[in-house]
């Protein structure tokens, strides 16, 4: 029997606001524990939360970028649960009236476009961090309590681990492009929960699902779904049924395991938040927000193909992250060689970034530097081969391309006189090559060029060297 893997996702992304969702505490990551708190996010009795305007702005922008309908009316609700990661004993979230509804994300799977439905996007507060480092208790850091989140819920339209990863990457890029979240996985500013089930291929009904929460890398996401769907298929083949449960993904061991099951089904007893008033957004405001959306990756890709004549493959890669696209455009504005700029950004730069464990955000040189490097190749100062060595030194932060070329004395020899005397000597020392050429064996030119490059340590301009070799050799033959 053949099985089909069905996945639905919930993506939590922290919004890039300066302050928390209901109070003026900072949202900055990485500060000492419990230094970003106030009576509101500590859950003191009698305090009054007030919604951060930018949270609504960013969430509406995210909704529009993911092709959702923005609700004219939405409201906040309390989700009640006891867990020390939220001191209030409830999370302020949205239940039956979320801010955004019914969107679509188009993903590319094996060259085909496939739409994945977005059920809803709502705004809510993040919970605090529990540290399990004390021997006789659990330590609570409230800094993250109240950091604004959007929760993006997908339809179960995703089939298998690869599609899930592509979908997650697409959503992350969209959020990054629109500037609503920095989507830093390593800081947990974007997290994935997955619902996985399997069913007989062709069946219309959904199988029983299990949930895995807080997967924090694309790799973990893909591996967790691969493992869990296989496990479910094996269970079904043995004639067992799937238990609906939350499972924990262990990325080190590469396995999922059932979490201690709760005796009762979750019952959050949602009710309207009496301390916060509804959000009303007019069609005019929604239209305005739509007009202000930045250019999305797909539109950018089309433009790069039309405006810069880039092949589709290149345009796809260059627009896959906001930073790469920005670097590309800034560089092309300085030196008009789009294809060369794209080549550097697709091949050498990613290789160096990977080796140095950097990203396009932390690349140690500017578009000005890359433009300078390309201009040095274009004006014949250095060869393409030397340029690769210059790039390496740029990653070592040795300075601008010009400074590096000067420091290492890598400029091609432009002095025809000097090059000519080197060539004359080589021709003199290799009479056999000259007689070979005289006898019609043109291959000997290659040997002589090689000798010239060796003598000049690769700094001779190859075209110029070839020209002079031919002159000197024919003169020699004439003698």
């Amino acid at each position, binding site marked *: 029997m053949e099985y089909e893997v069905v996945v639905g996702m919930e993506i939590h992304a922290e919004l890039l*606001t300066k302050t928390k969702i209901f109070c*003026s505490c900072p949202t900055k990551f990485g500060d000492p524990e419990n230094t970003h708190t106030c009576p509101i996010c500590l859950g003191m009795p009698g305090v009054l939360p007030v919604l*951060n305007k930018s949270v*609504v702005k960013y969430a509406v922008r995210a909704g529009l970028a993911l092709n959702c309908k923005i609700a004219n009316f939405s*409201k906040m609700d309390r989700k009640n649960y006891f867990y020390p990661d939220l001191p209030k004993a409830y999370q302020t979230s949205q239940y039956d009236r979320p801010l955004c509804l019914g969107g679509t994300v188009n993903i590319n799977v094996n060259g085909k476009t496939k739409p994945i439905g977005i059920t809803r996007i709502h705004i809510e507060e993040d919970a605090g961090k529990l540290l399990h480092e004390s021997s006789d208790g659990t330590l*609570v850091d409230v800094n993250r309590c109240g950091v604004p989140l959007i929760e993006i819920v997908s339809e179960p339209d995703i089939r298998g681990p690869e599609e899930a990863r592509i979908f997650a990457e697409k959503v992350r890029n969209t959020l990054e492009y629109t500037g609503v979240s920095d989507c830093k996985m390593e800081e947990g500013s974007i997290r994935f929960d997955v619902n996985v089930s399997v069913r007989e291929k062709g069946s219309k009904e959904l199988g029983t699902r299990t949930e895995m929460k807080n997967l924090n890398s694309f790799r973990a996401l893909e591996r967790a779904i691969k493992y869990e769907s296989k496990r479910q298929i094996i269970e079904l083949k043995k004639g067992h049924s799937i238990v609906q449960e939350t499972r*924990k993904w262990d990325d080190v061991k590469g396995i999922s395991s059932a979490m201690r099951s709760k005796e009762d089904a979750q019952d959050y007893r949602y009710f*309207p938040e009496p301390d916060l008033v509804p959000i009303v957004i007019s069609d005019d405001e929604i239209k305005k927000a739509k007009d202000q959306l930045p250019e999305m990756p797909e539109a950018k890709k089309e433009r790069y193909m039309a405006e810069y004549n880039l092949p589709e493959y290149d345009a796809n890669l260059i627009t896959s992250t906001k930073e790469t696209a920005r670097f590309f455009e800034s560089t092309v504005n300085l030196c008009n060689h789009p294809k060369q700029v794209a080549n550097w950004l697709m091949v050498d730069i990613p290789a160096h970034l990977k080796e140095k464990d950097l990203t396009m955000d932390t690349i140690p040189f500017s578009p000005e530097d890359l433009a300078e490097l390309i201009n040095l190749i274009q004006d014949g100062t250095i060869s393409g081969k030397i340029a690769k060595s210059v790039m390496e030194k740029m990653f070592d932060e040795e300075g601008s391309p010009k400074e590096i070329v000067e420091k290492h004395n890598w400029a091609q020899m432009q002095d025809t006189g000097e090059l000519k005397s080197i060539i004359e000597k080589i021709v003199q020392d290799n009479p056999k090559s000259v007689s070979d050429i005289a006898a019609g064996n043109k291959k000997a030119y290659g040997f002589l060029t090689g000798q010239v490059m060796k003598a000049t340590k690769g700094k001779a301009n190859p075209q110029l060297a070839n020209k002079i070799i031919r002159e000197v050799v024919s003169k020699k033959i004439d003698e």
Partner: protein
Amino acid sequence: MSISNEEVTYVSKLARLRFNEEETNKMAEELGSVLDYVATLNEVDTKDIQPTEHILPVSNVFRDDVVGTPLSNDVALSNAPDQENGCFKVPRVLD
């Protein structure tokens, strides 16, 4: 409209409350009469009334995204029954 002892036990569990049998009986009786009283609202004709989404006739109360001064770590922890390394300390919970 009354409430069963099972419902009382379920709701009290969610609220982390523990009642003995006698208390459970009493709760069921008292909560039942409260619910019966509230249920008289069902007799009101609401045919032409808009559903209430919120108790206040107000919307769009926002604050600007401007950073204020948070509490210092000592002040934040000053009400904590137990603390360690600048953190609130609670009974051990499992992941």
